[in-house]
């Protein structure tokens, strides 16, 4: 069943700072099927973050539509959007944990907001910490954790909302290659066991290769190419895709050598 799950239609976004304006997105359309691990790759400034932030409306697009599971997000009321967002998890490059609270408290946080009873909150949080392999760090503070561990906490936190979509904006960009691999494996495991549609935003080829099934190449606010990872990587059509491939290969050579 390859029904479309996230439907992005003709999305445009322009930033104006003083007299300068940048068209970050110029009519982007994408169809992301349910249960897919979908990658969006592009060089810095391509508009990737803007795109992903338009998906959960952290950024309001100037034009276009975002339809998730049949619901047009732009037509929702504030309250409806808030509830919808709980089902659209997002993780960031910088993990944004609350530094003054323990790992467990951080993970409990969304549940607290949703007024889940205390005992249940703790049980659930521990369950998700277990899932990301950090049950033994429940009482540690974020400052005592490594970058990879912090990202795991952020993942456990977002999972407590039981999201149907997970948006990852450069979630591994602050991590070394080994840790990146571990986090990607964790995301794949979550995808396989919980049936969550995952959108991965990255500028790194190897991230796409590692876990994505489909990929869109974004350049200069335009989708240059879109298809299965195999097709795009073995037989790139667009200039941007070819260039990214070249960069990816050099990086890989450097990493191995």
């Amino acid at each position, binding site marked *: 069943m390859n029904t479309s799950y996230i439907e992005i239609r003709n999305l445009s976004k322009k930033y104006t700072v003083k007299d300068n304006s940048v068209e970050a997105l110029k009519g982007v359309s994408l169809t992301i099927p349910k249960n897919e691990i979908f990658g969006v790759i592009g060089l810095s400034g391509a508009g990737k973050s803007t795109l992903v932030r338009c998906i959960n409306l952290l950024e309001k697009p100037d034009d276009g539509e975002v339809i998730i599971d049949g619901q047009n997000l732009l037509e929702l009321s504030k309250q409806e959007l*808030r509830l919808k967002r709980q089902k659209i998890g*997002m993780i960031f490059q910088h993990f944004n944990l609350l530094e003054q609270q323990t790992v467990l408290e951080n993970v409990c946080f969304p549940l607290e907001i949703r007024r889940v009873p205390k005992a249940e909150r703790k049980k659930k949080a521990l369950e998700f910490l277990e899932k990301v392999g950090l049950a033994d760090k429940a009482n540690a503070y974020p400052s005592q954790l490594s970058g990879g561990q912090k990202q795991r906490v952020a993942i456990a936190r977002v999972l407590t909302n039981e999201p149907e979509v997970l948006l990852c904006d450069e979630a591994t960009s602050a991590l070394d290659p080994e840790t990146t691999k571990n986090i990607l494996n964790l995301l794949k495991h979550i995808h396989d066991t919980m049936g969550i549609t995952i959108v991965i935003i990255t500028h790194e080829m190897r991230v796409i290769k590692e876990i994505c099934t489909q990929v869109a190449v974004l350049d200069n606010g335009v989708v240059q190419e879109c298809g299965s990872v195999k097709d795009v990587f073995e037989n790139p059509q667009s200039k941007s895709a070819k260039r990214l491939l070249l960069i990816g290969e050099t990086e890989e050579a450097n990493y191995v050598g």
Partner: protein
Amino acid sequence: MQNLGLDVFFKGTNFLRLLDGLWVAVRISLISVAISIILGIAVGVLMTSKSRIIKVVSKIYLEIVRIMPQMVLLFIVYFGSTRVFRWNISAEISAIIVFSFWGVAEMGDLVRGALISIPKIQYESSEALGMAASQTYLYIILPQTVRRLIPLSINLITRMIKTTSLVMMIGIVEVLKVAQQIIEANRRVSPNATFGVFAVVFLLYFLICWPISRLASYLEKRWA
């Protein structure tokens, strides 16, 4: 004892008078501090507004407070305004007005600084978790702002308490004023009184400001 000039304290009600004066100073400080904190928070939130008018007005306000010595403000309010508007405000009220005028500006600036130092991503990640704006402020932004604010505002409070001695200039019977009266009255009998009295005044200020600054550094360490 004679040499240090401390004997003047044991004459009549001198020591009590000194304590009384201290209480007036503390009362002025406490009331101005309370006003400064409450209004300062509101002003600080206002100052983060993008409105041009608010930006300009608050900039001018801050500059006035920074450039004008408090003493000048005190004279303007106490002598100037009473003459111009023909009202009658006590020295204590004028002092409270001036110190609050100053405190609100400084506090507002601290609040504004703390608010804009919270990275945008903190708002966004909480929004992305499906929290309402009010929840974001209450659970994410407020605790972090307060944590940054406490050491800074305690520093402001200690400065305000110290500056209250300025009030003496417009004749409030306040610590330094009382001290000076005691010194004057005893010039003949106890020529060293200047030293003794000021030493005691210093001690009294120290006793008030020291616990506050200890508390400040403790909180700073704990929440840094």
